[in-house]
């Protein structure tokens, strides 16, 4: 289906992780809320980030009650919805980003918009648009079975979370369920920028590594090149969200500010 774009879909994501592992580096995955700075210009920001060194993307579908998000992404979600961003426009954006950048796209959202659309319909729609995978912020392992099954049916990946609080036995069960990748929550708390990068999750990452081949991506609280470089030493991928969203919120017309930040983060992740 995506012969024109060989790097798309779940396979594209697997290849991105595999080649990064082979090269001894990590994958850099910036996050941006769909619809920023505007519905029309959102795709340009992803294209610019691709040119600046992003290997894959997380596209956030804005939700009215983003429980896992701190003030920056809350603000972004509110603005994007005010500007008319919807689920169907978000899926259109995924399609444009995938085809124009030829890089894996992960859709990030919350449980209720997915339920409202129908789990299978949602997974089918984002897969058809060329997405590689899905992250659902308020979906824990216990409730994930119908979502994983639907994702698998459309050949896209569903990420599961591991947090600094997750006990060892639970980490083993989550890894054994073979998710598309594990989203390691690097810091206790919601998304946002932090002054210091903690290392609460090191031991859990080593545990996952010792029992499974599932790629691990670190996110939450990673905003500076130093923090990103630290995370890249541990994980297969690094997600930076709030720091990038903040630039797009504060300097919506300044593409150069965005690419400068993304370049330095990408360089830090790639080592």
């Amino acid at each position, binding site marked *: 289906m995506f012969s024109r774009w060989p790097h798309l879909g779940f396979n594209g994501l697997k290849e991105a992780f595999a080649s990064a592992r082979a090269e001894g580096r990590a994958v850099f995955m910036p996050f941006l809320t769909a619809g920023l700075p505007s519905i029309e210009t959102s795709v340009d920001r992803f294209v610019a980030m691709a040119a600046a060194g992003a290997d894959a993307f997380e596209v956030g579908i804005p939700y009215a009650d983003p429980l896992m998000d701190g003030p920056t992404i809350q603000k972004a979600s509110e603005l994007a919805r005010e500007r008319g961003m919807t689920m169907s426009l978000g899926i259109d954006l995924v399609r444009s980003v995938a085809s124009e950048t030829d890089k894996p796209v992960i859709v990030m959202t919350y449980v209720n918009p997915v339920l409202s659309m129908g789990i299978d319909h949602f997974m089918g729609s984002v897969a058809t648009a060329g997405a590689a995978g899905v992250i659902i912020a308020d979906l824990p392992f216990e409730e994930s079975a119908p979502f994983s099954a639907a994702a698998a049916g459309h050949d896209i990946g569903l990420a599961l979370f591991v*947090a600094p*609080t997750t006990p060892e036995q639970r980490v083993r069960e989550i890894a054994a369920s073979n998710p598309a990748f594990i989203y390691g929550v690097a810091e206790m708390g919601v998304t946002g920028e932090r002054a210091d990068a903690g290392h609460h999750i090191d031991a859990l990452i080593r545990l996952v590594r010792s029992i499974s081949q599932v790629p691990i991506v670190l996110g939450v609280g990673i905003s500076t090149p130093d923090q990103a470089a630290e995370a890249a030493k541990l994980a297969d991928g690094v997600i930076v969200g709030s720091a990038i969203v903040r630039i797009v919120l504060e300097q919506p017309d300044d593409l150069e500010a965005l690419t400068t930040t993304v370049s330095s983060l990408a360089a830090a992740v790639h080592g």
Partner: protein
Amino acid sequence: MTVSLPDRRGRYGEFGGRFAPETLMPALLELESVFEEAWGDEAFVGEYHRILADFVGRPTPIYEASNLSKELGVRLLLKREDLNHTGAHKINNTIGHGLLAKRMGKPRIIAETGAGQHGVASATAAALLGLECEVFMGVKDIERQALNVYRMELLGTRVVPVSSGAGTLKDAVSEAMRSWVSTVNTTHYMIGSVVGPHPFPLIVREFQKVIGEELLSQMGEERPDVVVACVGGGSNAMGVFYPLIDSGIELIGVEAGGLGTETLAHGASLSLGRPGVLHGSMTYMLQDEEGQVREAHSISAGLDYPGVGPEHAYFKDKGLVRYETATDAEALDAFAWLSRKEGIIPALESAHALAWIRREAASLAGKTVVLNLSGRGDKDVQQVAALGV
């Protein structure tokens, strides 16, 4: 109940469950097992009931509202939860949660509040039990419930204003949950209603069911025909309904009709919402066609919430409870009416339940009706005065 719910996954039929960020999951699993153990421990249950008796003032009386009864042609009994210490049923739950926090060795609690009653009850339990306490409250509610803000501060609690969304109860719950994600190792979330991810709806039900159990024992051989309670998140209604669910007594939950159920400005999640996931639980909720949460509206801060406890969703679908609505205007009338005729100023929340009884008086003629008077209205006096009632 013939089948004991929730099941191991925290489900009440298709409702409930545990849709929470992974960071919270270990705490929810720990809380589930700590609660199960504590609730089977005679010493814990004994201490809970001792505090309810000596500190809270339970049992609360049943009062026959003769003046209203005469006017309505209905025998109206009031279960006086307004006479609890701090002025509402909320303290039944916060005493239990406070004891759980101590049992888990967590020195700090957080809570959300709408009308401020749960916030005051949380602050009170914290003061009593020597816990640090922080309460999240929407900026709109801080404005309409200024008295309760001051009460919380007087009790040694820090009130954290929440300006996201509409600045009401939904936003306060969300912000409390966000705060809990970063403090979960030292902090217990003292949720105020039968909402949230499992095991919260179960725990709050168990701490509130004392209302219905007392009602049954106080009435002896006699049984009311109808029991009516207001429903926001639904904790006072759950507390009185749960022990009666198989009794054959007609159970009526009254939601906020706001400006009218033909408008979008109401809090009638069960009557007009559809199933979805809000605050960690599958339940009826107000949402648009894309699954975005819709803002609720009610004159009463405690009913101004776009979701409802998952067990109420189950009761609705099983036909075990009937859910109705009363508007802002009807509730205001009932508020003034009870004050004038019985010398009892009710909480605006409870006034919704009374408003339904008043409207339905003809069909209730000759019956014995119990109204769960969930709280007193001192907190609402300033707001109602400003409306010129």
